[in-house]
């Protein structure tokens, strides 16, 4: 090979990755800034210098000039909540991007295999049976995972999982769990349990505690790390099963890894904060507008965009009215029109 070609290849590569790298760096800074600003927001006023000192006191010795309430608000309420919004938003967005690539369909969202329907049923069942928060979360998690496992079993034919079969199996399983959820709502006590179920289904981060953060973030982080590790191979998977096989990819293994990672993070997210729609569908499209369709850049971009977006939505949810507005309502009210606007701008092209 001539040196000129090699040189051109190297410079082209630099110019190709440079823009994406710069955008990702910008997003990282923005997410951190949004997270920091969000710590100030809320009913209990805390001035910036106090906040910085409260946060810094955990790392370096700082003279204590604030009351215990401030400490509690920052460490036990706001920080867990912001951290959870960050992880849940990022998780939903990155699994949406991975699924859209894997299913070769930009209209797919993370609940395509029935995880949210299963999780919703699990939570409602636990509420009906009078379970505590932990029981509700565990039940949501287990039924979410069980729903995806059922979808996978139905969609599997001759040791392969054709995309169309998986999608159809997901619709079947989703419908069954939706019907079971309706049954639970129908028999639930309308004064006490039904409102609890309905509120849970609308999604909220208002009850997030420090211990929940500690238990929910590791599985989400593991799922995110797995998806980031295989992100370039999602490009190959998006060419279709047969071409991916011809290129030497173990298609079933890769699909399995992606499904397990996405299910782990979505089921965990649903179990902690209920059903939050639209993030996993819309954010990857915004990501494509910014960094292009290559999953090598799209997955990290979706992760960061999703994180920033859900922190902002949660800020809105706890500040616009005295009572909290459920997250699921806001993500749909903002996400759906935004999606329509974007579709019109790109005229349906997936750029």
């Amino acid at each position, binding site marked *: 090979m001539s040196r000129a*070609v090699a040189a051109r290849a190297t410079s*082209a590569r630099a110019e*190709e990755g440079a823009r994406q790298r710069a955008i990702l760096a910008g997003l990282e800074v923005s997410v951190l800034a949004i997270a920091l600003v969000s710590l100030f927001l809320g009913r209990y006023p805390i001035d910036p210098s106090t906040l910085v000192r409260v946060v810094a006191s955990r790392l370096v010795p700082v003279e204590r000039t604030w009351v215990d309430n401030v400490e509690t608000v920052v460490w036990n309420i706001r920080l867990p909540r912001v951290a959870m919004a960050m992880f849940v938003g990022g998780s939903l967005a990155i699994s949406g991007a991975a699924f859209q*690539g894997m299913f070769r369909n930009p209209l797919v969202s993370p609940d395509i295999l029935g995880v949210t329907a299963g999780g919703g049923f699990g939570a409602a069942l636990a509420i009906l049976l009078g379970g505590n928060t932990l029981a509700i979360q565990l039940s949501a998690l287990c039924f979410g995972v069980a729903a995806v496992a059922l979808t996978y079993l139905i969609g599997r034919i001759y040791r392969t999982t054709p995309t169309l079969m998986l999608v159809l199996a997901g619709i079947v399983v989703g419908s069954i769990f939706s019907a079971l959820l309706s049954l639970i709502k129908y028999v639930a006590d309308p004064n006490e349990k039904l409102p609890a179920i309905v509120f849970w289904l609308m999604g909220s981060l208002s009850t997030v505690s420090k211990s929940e953060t500690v238990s929910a973030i590791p599985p989400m982080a593991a799922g995110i790390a797995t998806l980031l590790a295989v992100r*370039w191979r999602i490009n190959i998977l998006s060419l279709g099963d047969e071409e991916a096989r*011809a290129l030497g*990819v173990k298609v079933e293994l890769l699909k399995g890894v992606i499904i397990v990672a996405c299910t782990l993070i979505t089921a965990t997210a649903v179990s902690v904060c209920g059903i939050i729609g639209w993030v996993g569908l819309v954010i990857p499209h915004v990501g494509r507008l910014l960094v292009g369709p290559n999953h090598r850049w799209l997955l990290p971009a979706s992760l960061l965009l999703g994180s920033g977006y859900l922190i902002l939505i949660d800020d809105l949810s706890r500040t616009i009215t005295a009572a909290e507005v459920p997250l699921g309502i806001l993500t749909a009210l903002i996400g759906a029109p935004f999606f329509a606007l974007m579709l019109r701008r790109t005229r349906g092209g997936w750029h």
Partner: protein
Amino acid sequence: MTATLALEHGSFSYDRPIFAGLSLALECGRVDALLGPNGCGKTTLLRCLGGALALREGRVTLEGRALGEYGEAERARRIAFVFQEHHTVFPYSVLEAVRMGRTPHLGFLASPGPHDTAIAERALETVGCSHLRSARYTEISGGERQLVLIARALAQEPSILLLDEPTSHLDFGNQMLLLMVVERLAREQGLAVLMSTHHPDHALLVAHHVYLMKEGSILAQGAPCDVVTAEHLRALYGIEVSVMAMDGDRQVVVPMLQPHSDGRQKREEKR
């Protein structure tokens, strides 16, 4: 010359038998053409040779070893397959699409590096499409896309290239361009090429060896001038043709159909 990829008494069936008792062998630096009517089993045969489908009977050997013994990536480093139908959803850049050919050389968690990019660039240059490197893969013409897919196959650095009707959907000029590229790859890079085609002329133009396939068996095989004959084509397609010698040792296939203008003249005479 040693056979790189060979089929020994291979049979395949879905609900009905597709082909049975087929044997063939590809050789380095040689272009083999597979001719046959629609539905005669050409694509199925290619997919069996590429390892996408498993034979019911017989075996495929790659460099003397059974194809089934190779791992996916191991196989894809030796055999590249260009599919007839290719649907893309996401508008990757042409260079990115070609770089995907590097997959069998990369670890499970790896992304392509500068070395892979250089190989992809060279593959694009080989098929004469370097100017398209930054274009969106979904927005280039059908002819360009076929060449880019061949570049992707070359990025796999294979010794065997399987092409399923590479000239279908292409205009006349692009058909010739593609055939020239295929011929050059065999001659200059020593690739063993097998391509299926609907055009006997294409076989005459670039192939060194031709297989005529009908209803799941090989009707005839050998050098193009011996195999692409009027009788064979009549047996294969059920139409009358004449194979004519051109200047030099070139031959062309001319269908002996009732010329359309005659019919019109007769109608006009009636008036």
